[in-house]
């Protein structure tokens, strides 16, 4: 990279991490000092500064996309495996940094309005800024141990922010659930990292990726699958996705930032970053693609039957993350990362609009209880429409470009999963417009508790939504045009060289790709139309046709109930994993308190009882002692006389 950015990249990269960290420190100090006023400025300045620097770096990469560089910041563990505070900056890093910090910045600004009256105001901004700093460490790391540090730091921030309203039992439980489920994935990830260090004696990306060939095929598969284990937990894929819907208990900006736009994409980033390892193992890539494809369609079906706006969006997020893994798994990492970028914009936007609705409706976002909001919330309505169109994949909005590339590549590399992805795209368009029409169209329905809040939200919340909406419109075409040769492909080319020529499967199709794009567009619009027909009146399918008797109606009700209850997966996990573990814990506890403590108490009881008996002799009467002494003396004399006689 040439020019000013290239020369100063070492300083720039440092400040990208340090600015949010400073913001977090200032806001944290204010939280401790119980100062509310102006706490948001610390976070806004820190994250905003990082966003400006990141955009600068990304802009620098536009000039020279092939370049990659290491920035040594400091020594960490001088044990000869390359575990240092070092940054690795290439196209992938630049794209991730820009996405994370820009979306974070807008959401932090939004939080100023959303959290205005919350008691934990400064604490919230301290945690948000800390999260952004951790995420930047994760993305910038040049070795697996620093990556792991960032990985766990974002997990901790996620835990603290899901449980932000810690007095609410459901929020506290959701935080614990997120943390515990992530532990399962992270255990695999940690073992994977340790395996890399043990077998290669190195943790730096450059050395590890250069020496992947030293592994046998089985070893490469093992390492790749262990790493993927961490990605499955962090990015909420089957079977560890269960924490993400519950994570919606946190404040909505947290859902938007951490559980939609940034942290959950860390798994995708990590798999793309470690592509050299995955490319060495066709089996692992196959697993990534299958898990991604299945998760995409599975979560999309659940989203069909949810009523809570944030839950619909949460399952949608799981589904879209599945797309990203599918893209990476079929050797189209650029498409997967592209979808990551566009998804960060439009899903962040959708969550912010859901937050705006929640704000205006006094916490009520059940689409059975609200409706017709376009009349009282025109800005939110417009923003949500843009987000929904982008998610549905309607051209020329952002989601269209990236989703198309993934589906094109999937059809080329894995036709079955490609078909599934097309079905998922149709479901996606349907469920998101089901939410949209029920919430914003039809007759005006506002829950009574909303009261005077019902109306458009304030300036601090409107502007971030407007900017994200602009991003959701523009970012796809700006980065992805022309298809297969867009800015993002050029920037990512060096970082995703491991995928070889297969990464450009989509463009090789030529005519067939345009056929797919056209077909998908028609499909998406058709599903939007279907949703319009079914839901514009504000009533649901089951409410209309599922009432009454008859086998068909009962079947509809049953199927809907099954999906609404999320296929009872939480209950199955509860019975199959949590229940036995809890019983084991009870058993251990009982053993501890009865057997082990029992033995100890018994041993202790012997001297205690002896002492208790002997205590009776100590009567405090001096004459009694004398008498006892006399008796003993007499007996001793008697014994002596006997023995002598």
């Amino acid at each position, binding site marked *: 990279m040439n020019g000013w950015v290239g020369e100063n990249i070492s300083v720039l990269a440092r400040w990208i991490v340090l600015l949010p960290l400073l913001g977090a420190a200032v806001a944290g100090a204010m939280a401790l000092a119980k100062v509310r006023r102006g706490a948001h400025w610390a976070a806004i300045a820190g994250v905003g500064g990082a966003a400006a620097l990141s955009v600068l770096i990304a802009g620098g990469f536009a000039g020279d996309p092939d370049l990659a560089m290491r920035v040594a910041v400091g020594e960490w563990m001088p044990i000869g495996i390359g575990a240092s505070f070092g940054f690795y900056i290439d196209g992938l890093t630049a794209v991730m940094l820009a996405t994370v910090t820009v979306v974070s910045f807008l959401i932090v600004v939004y939080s100023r309005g959303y959290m205005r009256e919350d008691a934990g105001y400064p604490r919230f901004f301290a945690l948000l800024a800390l999260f952004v700093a951790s995420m930047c460490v994760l993305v910038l790391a040049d070795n697996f141990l620093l990556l792991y540090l960032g990985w766990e730091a974002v997990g901790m921030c996620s835990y603290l922010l899901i449980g932000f309203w810690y007095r609410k039992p459901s929020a506290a439980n959701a935080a614990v659930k997120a943390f515990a489920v992530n532990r399962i994935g992270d255990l695999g990830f940690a073992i994977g990292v340790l395996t890399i260090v043990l077998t290669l004696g190195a943790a730096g990306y450059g050395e590890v990726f250069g020496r992947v060939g030293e592994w046998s095929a089985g070893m490469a598969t093992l390492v790749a699958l262990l790493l993927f284990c961490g990605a499955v937990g962090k990015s909420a894929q089957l079977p560890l996705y269960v924490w993400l819907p519950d994570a919606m208990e946190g404040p909505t900006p947290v859902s938007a930032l951490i559980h939609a736009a940034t942290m959950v994409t860390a798994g995708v980033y990590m798999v793309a970053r470690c592509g050299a390892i995955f490319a060495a193992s066709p089996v692992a890539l196959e697993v990534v693609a299958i898990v991604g494809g299945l998760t995409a369609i599975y979560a999309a079906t659940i989203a069909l039957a949810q009523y809570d706006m944030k839950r619909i969006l949460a399952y949608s997020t799981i589904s879209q993350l599945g797309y990203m893994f599918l893209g990476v798994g079929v050797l189209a990492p650029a498409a997967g990362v592209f979808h990551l970028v566009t998804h960060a914009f439009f899903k962040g936007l959708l969550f912010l609009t859901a937050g705006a609705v929640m704000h205006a409706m006094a916490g009520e976002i059940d689409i059975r209880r609200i409706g017709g909001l376009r009349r009282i919330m025109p800005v939110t309505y417009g923003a949500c429409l843009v987000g929904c169109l982008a998610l549905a994949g309607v051209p020329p909005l952002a989601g269209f470009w990236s989703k198309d590339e993934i589906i094109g590549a999937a059809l080329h590399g894995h036709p079955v999963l490609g078909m599934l992805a097309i079905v998922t795209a149709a479901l996606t368009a349907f469920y998101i417009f089901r939410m949209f029409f029920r919430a914003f169209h039809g007759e005006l329905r506002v829950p009574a508790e909303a009261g005077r809040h019902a109306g458009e939200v304030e300036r601090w919340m409107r502007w971030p939504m407007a900017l994200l909406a602009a991003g959701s419109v523009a970012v796809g075409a700006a980065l992805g045009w022309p298809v297969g040769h867009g800015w993002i492909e050029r920037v990512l080319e060096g970082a995703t060289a491991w995928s070889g020529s297969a990464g450009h499967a989509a463009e090789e199709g030529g005519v067939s790709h345009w056929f797919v794009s056209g077909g998908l567009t028609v499909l998406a619009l058709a599903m939007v139309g279907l949703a319009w027909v079914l839901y514009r009146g504000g009533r649901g399918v089951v409410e209309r046709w599922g009432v009454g008797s008859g086998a068909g109606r009962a079947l509809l009700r049953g199927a809907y109930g099954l999906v609404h209850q999320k296929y009872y997966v939480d209950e199955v996990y509860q019975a199959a994993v949590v229940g036995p573990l809890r019983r084991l814990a009870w058993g251990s506890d009982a053993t501890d308190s009865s057997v082990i403590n029992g033995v100890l108490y018994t041993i202790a009881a012997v001297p205690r009882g002896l002492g208790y008996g002997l205590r009776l002799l*100590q009567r405090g*009467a001096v004459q009694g002692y004398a008498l006892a002494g006399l008796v003993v003396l007499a007996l001793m004399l008697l014994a002596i006389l006997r023995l002598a006689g």
Partner: protein
Amino acid sequence: MSQHLLPYIVLSGLIFTVGLVGFVTRRNLIVMFLSSEVMFQAVIIAAVAFGRFHGTLEGQAFVMMLLAVAAAEAAVGLALIIVVFRGRQTLDAETLTEMRG
């Protein structure tokens, strides 16, 4: 000399018994203290008698030391009794049961 040992031992035993019975039965601390002194004298008589019986001087030498120790002990003991009396206005041994286990 040996034929005269028995009466001394008997006398010593009788005096000792008097002291012992007094010590165990009386409740007044001063009387109990006196009784213990009586038992002391019984021991001293026995010591002198045995000394004469064996024709050695150790018995009488020990007696000198015993008398000195007994005098010191009497001073300490009486001082303690006075302190006890000042503290509780009674010398009844039955009431002194604070050390009961």
